[in-house]
């Protein structure tokens, strides 16, 4: 039983990192990424491939996973973030589907069967097949990400980001390079998703494209919206709820997607600030008073 709780805690942690990273894009760039699972997948496959084929140590795999995912984020962000608001959503959606197809069709990624026998981490001579140890490792990463996000949001750069989010034109007038900030945040966010991917791959030890498709991207999005767009704690809570609740309600697994869809619509209409986003959400996402329902 404790094994099972440890497992749930570890899985929740992956999603906490993913939700936090997506929340940076939504809550601090005012953009939506619909292909976030692709960065997660790129991280997982990068780390798995180099540890399996080159026998690289786990830490190198982890670092490379972050870098490669961030690089893809940069490549996608530079051309798109400079144009219109809703373009990023579409381009990332297309990107997610292409990555999914590439993983399915390439020989090196094992096609639909994916990769197996991914080695568990080799750090400090600890046995990471023991879930308690793995949880410690994952928790350390979650705390590092949390600290990074918290410090970033409360720094000078964080204030610039909030200015961009709330009023981009004014921010630009104040001399903030809005495009550069957006690209930087998007790259950082992609890197964080890559980190989650690497941690996931070495925990589960076998991966296939199924875990990194559109469905996962929407799940992460639902977590962010549920917790509150722009709220750090909200992402943690949203990820926790949507990992643990489906486990407890296994009997209703058939209704899971139905619930996610309904939840997204209902939250946006009745509680756009999410569970914990009071006063933290971009004004962009909240309807002006008196305009509700036209």
């Amino acid at each position, binding site marked *: 039983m404790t094994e099972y709780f440890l497992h749930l805690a570890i899985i929740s942690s992956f999603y906490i990192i993913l939700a936090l990273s997506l929340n940076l894009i939504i809550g601090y760039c005012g953009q939506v990424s619909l292909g976030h699972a692709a960065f997660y997948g790129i991280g997982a496959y990068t780390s798995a491939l180099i540890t399996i084929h080159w026998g690289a140590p786990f830490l190198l795999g982890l670092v490379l996973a972050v870098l490669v995912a961030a690089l893809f984020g940069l490549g996608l962000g530079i051309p798109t973030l400079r*144009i219109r608001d809703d373009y990023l959503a579409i381009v990332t959606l297309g990107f997610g589907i292409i990555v999914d197809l*590439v993983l399915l*069709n390439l020989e090196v990624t094992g096609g639909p069967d994916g990769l197996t026998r991914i080695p568990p981490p080799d750090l400090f001579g600890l046995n990471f097949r023991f879930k308690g140890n793995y949880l410690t490792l994952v928790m350390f990463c979650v705390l590092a990400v949390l600290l990074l996000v918290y410090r970033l949001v409360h720094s000078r750069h964080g204030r610039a980001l909030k200015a961009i989010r709330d009023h981009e034109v004014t921010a630009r007038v104040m001399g903030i390079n809005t495009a550069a900030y957006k690209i930087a945040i998007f790259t950082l966010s992609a890197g964080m998703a890559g980190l989650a991917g690497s941690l996931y791959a070495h925990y589960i030890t076998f991966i296939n494209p199924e875990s990194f498709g559109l469905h996962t991207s929407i799940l992460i999005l639902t977590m962010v919206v549920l917790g509150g767009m722009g709220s750090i704690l909200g992402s943690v809570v949203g990820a926790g709820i949507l990992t643990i609740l489906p486990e407890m309600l296994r009997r209703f697994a058939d209704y899971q997607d139905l619930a996610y869809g309904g939840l*997204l*619509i209902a939250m946006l209409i009745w509680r756009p600030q999410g569970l914990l986003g009071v006063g933290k959400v971009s004004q962009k996402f909240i*309807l002006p008073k008196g305009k509700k329902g036209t």
Partner: protein
Amino acid sequence: MLLQQILNGLTAGSVYALVALGYTMIYGILGLINFAQGELYMAGAFAAVLLLSAYEVNFFLAFLFGMGVAALVGVTLERVAFRPLRGAHPLVPLISAIGASILMQSLALLLFGPTDRAFPVQFEFATVDVAGIPISTLQGAIFGSAVFFMTLLVLFVKYTRFGKAIMATAQDQDTARLMGINVDRMISLTFLIGSALSGAAGIMMAIYYNATYPRMGLLPGLKAFSAAILGGVGNIPGAIVGGLILGVAENLGAAYLSSGYKDAVAFAILIVVLLLRPRGLLGGRGH
């Protein structure tokens, strides 16, 4: 071989174009990307297939019924998921549309099960040789009906009072309201027409591939969206041209590059277009 692939592409492309018209009209009037468009396509196909397998009805009646159901679902969708969010940042209805899309997909999965349904009516289709290329009359019929619906739409928008009112609303909602146009009704009407066209497209594809299933709308919906962007979102002739080009490019890509990446072609085109010519080939409304 090449011509054959182009013809296959035109058939699929004409169906993408029908769905793309729905995207483009809704985007034109609301600035909203209706991600649930593919689910309206699925709803139309299911309605027609279920009616035909339950009752002995005329095929054309079932076709109209399917379009009607898709239209009804579309109008309801606008009421429930989009109208309460009007006036919010465009990303908010975008997320809501994604929610509606997975909601409808999983609802269909629960109601109708995951298996493919064959089309209940068998048609006798011949293969005709035109200048040495074998063409199935089914392809001809699909292409013909798609062109018929598109012509109807263009005529409607250009020459009727309602059509002009829709265009006026798309250009400037406030001015349209001042001119006495009921903007809410025009938005509903746009959803009605766009959804009916998607429903028609869904039924045609249900016949073409002989398969109706809950996820059938996902990829065609997204591809039609790429088609709308390719032609210039908000631009009606653009959606038609975009759909046809996309269908042909996809089939050529599958034939000459790799069939595994067939579905990637549309999205690769989408990304390239957004990067090089974000207003689309024929120039869309944009922002």
